[in-house]
């Protein structure tokens, strides 16, 4: 958590969801609810001005944190310190010629458009114009959804290149409509509670919020499953990697929020009727407000988790550690690929002397292969050389290891991996591997 990237991402996600959430809330929930206010009620004016302040604050935070995100990403891409990135024109290269940069340019344009719409659209006055309302909703959705192209979703190939970013964009829009609108809802309920005649406003707003929320929850669930499928891939990866475990915490928090929302709808909202018991109504309203604050806090924790997840290698990649972390400079590495399966063989150090071999086995789809036993053979380059055959031992990470191999000569050795996958089911892989002379 000492990484500044975490804070920048968390603030940017929160600000983006909030500004989009306010826009959705004003158009779809608050304005229709204000129509039910009694004559002379001040609630609409109070809520409009607070939401306007919130929207401007969130938009400003989104732009500032977005700029910081750009600088940090450009620094990581160019492997230069942030100060150099700004002074040496790297920023423009990132903006003009990378997917992330193009997305960021588009999002900056959307932020400007947002500001233009906010000026007349969100003020103490009511939004009259339908085109302005529609534009506000569309720009809000685009601003939240376009965050998808700044992260892991941008990386797929083939079908996934379309499905994953589309699912992620919808996920973000739905999150903005629900999580981003919780704070606005809390503000509205607060204002309605301090204004005795605004029960109808609170009731309409809560009902509409709940309906919008149910659509958002369904969307989040469906698109979240697609994202998880793309980025986690297996139940083992969900339980066995930091990415998977953190994602599980996020999912649990999400279901807690859904449970609270269900209680609001089924348990509290029936009390918000005009002819209900006044004391029960006041209690229900207070509890709804408290729950909205609780859900906002849970949403904030989820956003913090998302900020961390974006910086971790997704679970579906973690198994690639040897390649992901870079192969050590003095290692010999061979990737053996056949129709039946694959092996990554690393001999470290890859030179004459005592050395160690590490073997990772995959199936054709890069899922880890479970083997019962693995035998490792190295055949020396010279004709008549005696092959070294040794059983491999599986380590805690699932890799097969052979320690203390004595390599007698440099040159082009042949490596053979013989894996027993089941009764009568063997995988034999063979390939050349270069061994350097002794240093």
């Amino acid at each position: 958590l000492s990484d500044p990237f975490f804070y920048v991402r968390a603030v940017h996600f929160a600000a983006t969801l909030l500004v989009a959430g306010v826009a959705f809330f004003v158009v779809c929930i608050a304005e229709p609810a204000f129509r039910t206010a009694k004559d002379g009620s001040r609630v609409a004016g109070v809520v409009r001005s607070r939401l306007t302040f919130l929207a401007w604050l969130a938009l400003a935070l989104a732009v500032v944190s977005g700029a910081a995100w750009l600088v940090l990403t450009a620094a990581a891409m160019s492997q230069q310190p942030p100060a150099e990135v700004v002074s040496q024109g790297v920023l423009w290269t990132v903006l003009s010629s990378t997917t992330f940069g193009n997305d960021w340019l588009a999002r900056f344009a959307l932020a400007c458009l947002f500001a233009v719409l906010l000026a007349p659209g969100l003020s103490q006055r009511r939004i009259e114009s339908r085109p302005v309302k529609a534009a506000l909703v569309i720009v809000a959705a685009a601003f939240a959804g376009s965050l998808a192209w700044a992260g892991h979703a941008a990386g797929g190939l083939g079908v996934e290149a379309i499905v994953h970013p589309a699912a992620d964009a919808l996920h973000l829009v739905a999150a903005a409509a629900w999580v981003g609108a919780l704070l606005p809802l809390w503000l509205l309920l607060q204002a309605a509670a301090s204004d005795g005649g605004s029960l109808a406003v609170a009731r309409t707003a809560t009902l509409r919020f709940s309906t919008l929320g149910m659509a958002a929850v369904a969307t989040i669930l469906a698109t979240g499953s697609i994202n998880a499928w793309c980025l986690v891939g297996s139940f083992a990866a969900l339980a066995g990697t930091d990415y998977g475990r953190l994602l599980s915490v996020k999912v649990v928090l999400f279901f807690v929020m859904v449970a609270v929302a269900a209680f609001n709808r089924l348990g509290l909202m029936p009390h918000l009727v005009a002819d209900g018991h006044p004391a029960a109504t006041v209690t229900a309203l207070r509890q709804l407000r408290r729950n909205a604050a609780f859900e906002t806090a849970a949403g904030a924790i989820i956003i913090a988790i998302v900020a961390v997840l974006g910086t971790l290698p997704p679970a579906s990649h973690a198994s690639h550690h040897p390649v992901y972390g870079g192969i050590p400079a003095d290692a010999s590495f061979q990737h053996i690929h056949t129709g039946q399966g694959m092996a990554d063989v690393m001999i470290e150090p890859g030179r004459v002397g005592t050395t160690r071999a590490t073997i990772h086995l995959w199936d054709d789809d890069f899922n880890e292969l479970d083997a019962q036993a693995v035998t490792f053979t190295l055949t020396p380059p010279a004709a008549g050389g005696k092959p070294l055959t040794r059983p491999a031992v599986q380590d805690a990470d699932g890799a097969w290891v052979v320690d203390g191999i004595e390599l007698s000569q440099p040159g082009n050795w042949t490596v053979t991996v013989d894996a027993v996958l089941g009764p009568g089911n063997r995988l034999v892989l063979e390939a050349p591997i270069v061994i350097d002379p002794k240093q």
Partner: protein
Amino acid sequence: MRTLILIVSLLLVPLLPNAALAHAFLDHASPLVGSTVAAAPHEVALWFTQDLEPAFSSVEVTDAGGARVDQGKAAVSANTMRIGLKSLGSGTYRVRWHALSVDTHTTEGSFTFHVGGP
């Protein structure tokens, strides 16, 4: 009950096998990683598991003494990276690659190949 079944089935979706990955890992290369080739290749080609950002992806090829034997700039297109080679004699060559994937993550690695007989 129907809703419950729907929720449970959606939760089971992540358990389905997954054929694709992100992050630019080296999928395969020509000449093959660790291989011995009889004739000197004119270029090294690398295929990655993800599309690359040309502006920030690079590869260099060096001989056993550490001298550059590539033609300078790599051509990067979608998920492949290619670099031309000077004429190579027999010996072991090291390929060092640095890739920035379109999801903004960098990966790097190296491998050797051998030209000529053992």
